[in-house]
Each structure stands twice: as structure tokens, then as C-alpha cells.
């Protein structure tokens, strides 16, 4: 006797209900309700995934649908994993991920900590700080290209004001060493408020009485920070990191607007790279394999991370 959810629903349904709708058994009715959802799920999720896996073993090109398709085994995977350029792209992505998360957590937590000290007007400050997050990434990318302008850009002017370097002597977007940092700066500017909000929620969740007890137990401010504040905010912080990690792994719009992946392909993150392969070079089979590799990577990293997160929450 099988015990699927549908069976259980059928068993739980009183006979009177079933008998009113004659001609169909309870099981049939249950299936009727579930089928549209199952169909939708198959159509938009499962089928494309399987089809992508299938394509990843072929040399199919979507711009030449009539050409004969050959199965080439693991050739696509082999080529991707041995491709220097792809490794560079991966490195650029890792660099971008690491530094954006690093700065956003550092600055976001500090801001949250400052805002959480009860001072006058901290609500106004919160609103002001959160503003960048509410803008569209395309708009942000666009106006930061102006800010980065060597001649008229405010960013270059600000740097020169602070350090005395000539503002037109460096180009944030055009320079090979500076360009990766230019996107890190903009993403940090835009998304630090998000991390701050989550940290603030964490800090506000710590009741005052815990600090009072620590005060009575003669713990210094420093010790209170490390033994109470940090451990109790940590689950929130890790959640913020997870959100930012997932978001930034698929980062596209902001960087396309800012640098377009350049100069050369220095700021070409995997998502941009993938899009090029799939929809500019039309190497559909190759791009499918690429997508599968990324999927497995992200899936693996995320599940390790979520395990760690759960462990921290249990503590």
C-alpha cells in the first residue's frame, strides 16, 4: 500500500464529499488538483534543466537550428575546465565576491552598530543610509560611470582632494588594475545598506537585560562585544553573506553598465562571460556545459554554507 501525500489526502477526505462528485474516485480528484502545478514545474524548471544537461554533451548552436547536431561526449566540459580565460573569469568573480562581501559586512556591521547606539535622529540616518539600495542597478551603474570620469567625475575629484593626486591621472574604469576595484566600490556603495539592515535586526534582537547581566558580571565593553554581540548577531550576518553571495554570483546589470566586462575582459564575471558564449557566440552546447558547471559549484558552496549556518544557529 503506497502512502503518497495524495493517498493521505484521499484517506482524510470524508466519503460524503467524494460521493457528491460522482464519476471520479477520490484519487482522481486529488490528481486533478495537483496536476497543473506539476505540469508547470516540469515545463519551466525540470525540463529546461534536463534539456540543458542534454545540450551540454552536444555541439548544438542555437543560431543554426537546422544543422545536424553531434553528440561529442564530455568535450565541452574538458574544454571549459582547461580554458585559461574561463579560469580568469572565475578568478575575477571570486575576487569580486570576496571583496564586496568583505567590505559590505565590515562597513554594514559597523554602521549598524553605530546606529544601534541610541542617539537622537538615528531613524533619519537609517533612512538616508538605505537610499542607495532603493535605486535601480542600471541607474547606479550609469551615474557611477559619470562619477568615475577622470576629468569631471566627483570620485576622482574626491580622491585627489584627499590625497593630492591629479584627478585626471587615473581612470577607475579604464585601468586594468583599478577596474576590478571600481565595480567592488559601486556594489559596496549600493548594497552595504542591505547588510546593515540585517545586522541592525540582529543587534536589536539582543535584549538589554543580557548586557545588564554582563555588566553585573564585570565584563568589559570589549568582552561584551566579543562574547555577546558578535555570537548573537552571527546568524544574521551569515544570512546577509548568503544573500549577497547569491546575488553577486549572478551579478550582471551593474557591471555591464559600468565596465561592460572591460578593459579587455578584466571585469568579465562568469555571468557576463556565459551570456557572451550563449548569445553572442551562439555556442549553445558549450554554454550549457558552462551553466551546469556553475550550477554545481554554486549548489555545492551554498549547501556547505547553509549547513554551517544551521550549526551556528543551533549553538
Amino acid at each position, binding site marked *: 500500500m503506497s502512502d503518497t501525500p495524495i493517498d493521505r489526502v484521499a484517506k482524510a477526505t470524508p466519503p460524503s464529499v467524494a460521493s457528491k462528485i460522482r464519476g471520479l474516485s477520490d484519487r482522481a480528484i486529488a490528481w486533478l488538483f495537483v496536476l497543473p502545478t506539476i505540469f508547470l514545474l516540469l515545463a519551466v524548471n525540470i525540463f529546461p534543466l534536463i534539456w540543458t544537461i542534454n545540450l551540454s554533451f552536444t555541439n548544438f548552436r542555437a543560431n543554426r537550428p537546422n544543422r545536424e547536431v553531434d553528440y561529442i561526449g564530455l568535450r565541452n566540459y574538458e574544454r571549459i575546465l582547461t580554458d585559461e580565460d574561463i579560469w580568469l573569469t572565475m578568478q575575477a568573480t571570486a575576487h569580486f565576491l570576496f571583496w564586496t562581501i568583505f567590505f559590505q559586512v565590515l562597513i554594514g556591521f559597523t554602521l549598524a552598530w553605530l546606529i544601534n547606539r541610541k542617539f537622537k535622529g538615528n531613524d533619519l540616518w537609517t533612512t538616508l543610509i538605505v537610499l542607495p539600495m532603493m535605486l535601480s542597478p542600471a541607474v547606479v551603474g550609469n551615474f557611477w560611470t559619470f562619477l568615475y570620469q577622470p576629468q569631471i567625475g566627483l570620485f576622482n575629484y574626491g580622491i585627489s582632494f584627499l590625497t593630492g593626486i591629479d584627478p585626471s591621472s587615473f581612470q577607475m574604469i579604464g585601468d586594468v588594475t583599478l577596474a576590478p576595484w571600481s565595480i567592488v566600490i559601486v556594489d559596496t556603495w549600493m548594497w552595504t545598506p542591505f547588510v546593515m539592515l540585517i545586522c541592525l535586526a540582529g543587534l536589536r534582537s539582543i535584549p538589554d537585560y543580557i548586557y*545588564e547581566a554582563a555588566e*553585573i*558580571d564585570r565584563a*568589559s565593553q570589549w*568582552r561584551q562585544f566579543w562574547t555577546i554581540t558578535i555570537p548573537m548577531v552571527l546568524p544574521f550576518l551569515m544570512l546577509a553573506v548568503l544573500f549577497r553571495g547569491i546575488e553577486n554570483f549572478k551579478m550582471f546589470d551593474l557591471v555591464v553598465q559600468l565596465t561592460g566586462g572591460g578593459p579587455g575582459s578584466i571585469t568579465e564575471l562568469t555571468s557576463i562571460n556565459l551570456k557572451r558564449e550563449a548569445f553572442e557566440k551562439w555556442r549553445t552546447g558549450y554554454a550549457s556545459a558552462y551553466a551546469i558547471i556553475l550550477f554545481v559549484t554554486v549548489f555545492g558552496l551554498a549547501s556547505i554554507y547553509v549547513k554551517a549556518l544551521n550549526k551556528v544557529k543551533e549553538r
Partner: protein
Amino acid sequence: MSEVRLSNLSKAFGETIAVDDVTMTIPNGALVTLLGPTGAGKTTILRLISGLEQPEGGDVSIGGRSVVDDTPAQRNVAMVFQQYSLYPHMSVQDNLAFPLRSPLLKTPAEEIERKVSEIAEVLRISHKMNNKATELSGGEMQRVSIGRALVREPTIFLMDEPLSSLDAKLRSDLRIELKRIQENLGATLLYVTHDQIEAMTMSTHVGVLDHGRLVQFGTPREIYENPVNLYVAGRLGQPRINVLPADMFAGAPAGADKMGLRPEHIQQGEGKGSMVKRIEHLGDQIRLHLTLDGHDVVTLSEPHSDLEPGDTVAIQPRNPLFFDASGVRIT
């Protein structure tokens, strides 16, 4: 351990006057109990002593030195909070060790270990050492909270209803343990309770609070036998003191308006007849609810008495307490 002195201490929260001009000395090595109904200002007094609250007026001195400008850490007091206030993300072990792990104290790890397990033994929470603080019952949390105070060597222990969540047996066991520890250490302890037995048996002194004011301060026997007014008389004694018009029986002194009768002030067998309304069997004693000329009187009787509702018992007072019209004690 030190003497703690409160002089003209006052604290208000907006309109509410929580503590009103309290002057009280907690002698070195004494166990002082604060009695008072809910909202009387007991917790506020503890918080003022610990430094978590700043007084509006008056002074707190510990060991002869004014500490009003000191931080809680500088005052070196240990406190058992009414709502436990454990560190929720730490284990019981870590909660108990937290005060000892201060980098300033430089207590060796094995010393901490020894102290913590010793206290855990006394408080019967050794088997829960690895539980998180949130994975405990109310009574267990309360004992961890007591333990966190007892591992220390403070100037004064402040305990806010520390045994209130425990079952009757554990409560009476720990009452004796606490008293023993306090005596062994020669510790000064300020203790808040609603429990009559704790107040009477543990304390060297009792302070009775009414709306933030200290109404009477003395030994438990003084408070019980010589209350300064009706309010204090009503705080101790089970069943509660009976209040009757002073002229119900002959022999009231001049100016007396009310007469207070505790069960031991009521002699049965002679005097005015009263009707038995209800009988409560408490096991070791029997509580009689009587009506005397339209006034309710509650008193005790032998466990084996064969009285029944409707019977008549003759009663008369024996050395009762007399109060004037404003409730102040006369004799």
C-alpha cells in the same frame, strides 16, 4: 564582603515614584529580606544598589564609600535577576563560568572548573551542564542564575526572588543551602521574596516596603510580633492577621480603633460564640473560617478536631494588637 548603606535613596520613573526616601543599613554578613507587594520597589532598590539604575536623590555606600558614581563592575555586586537573564547562546557551563572568565581575574581554568562544578552540585544542575541556557525549565534557569552569582566573591549578593519558580521540596532544600553558603562565606545578602517562610527563617533583618517607602526594618520576630502598623502586620502571618473593630471585646486601650488577631491571639473554648462557615484541611493543620457578629475570622485548629460547618465555637482574644484609626499600632 561589606556593609551596604542606603541613605535617603529615591528613584522615580516619570510619574511613578518607585523608591521614596529609603534609609537602610545592611550590616556586613547579614541577610536582609525585602518584603512588599508587587510594584513596591523591591527590584528597583536592588538595581540602584547594583548601579544599573541611577538614583534621583540620596546615596548608596558600600564598605563605607559612596559608590553612586561607580559603574556596576566597580561596585562588584552579584545579582540574581528576577527574570533570570541568562546568556541564551551559551551552555549552562559557560553561563556559570562567565563571571570567572574575566581576563582581569586571571583565574586558572581548573580553578574555574572546580568552582563551577561545586556550585552546580549544590544547585542540582550538574546533569544539565551542556544544555543551552534556552533548553532549560524555568526552575533550572533560575538555579543557573543563582549559580552565576554564587561563583563570585562580591561585596554583596542581591537576589530577586531567587527561589520563586522552584517546587516546594527543592525550594525548602535550597533555602537551607543558600543560608548555609551565606553563613559559611560570611556574605552580605539582600534578598527579595514573597515567601513567608524564607523571610522568617533565613533573614537576620526584614525590611517592609510600601509604595517605595521603607515602613519598618527589624528582625523577623520584631516585624512579626511588633508591627508598627496594620500594613506591616498584614505582610507576615499565614493565615493573615484578622482585623476587627477594637470594641468587639472588652479591654481595648483608649484611642484604639482596630484590633489585630493572629491565630495565636485567639483562644478557643471561651468568650463570644462564632459560627463555623468553612473548614480547610491543610494536612498538618486545619483552617477554620468563622463568622463573628458579621465579621470574618480565620484561625487554626488541631488537625484532629471534629468541628463541622454550622457548629459554634466560642473565641476570645489573648494579647491582641491594637491600632488607631489611621492604622498605627498603639500597643
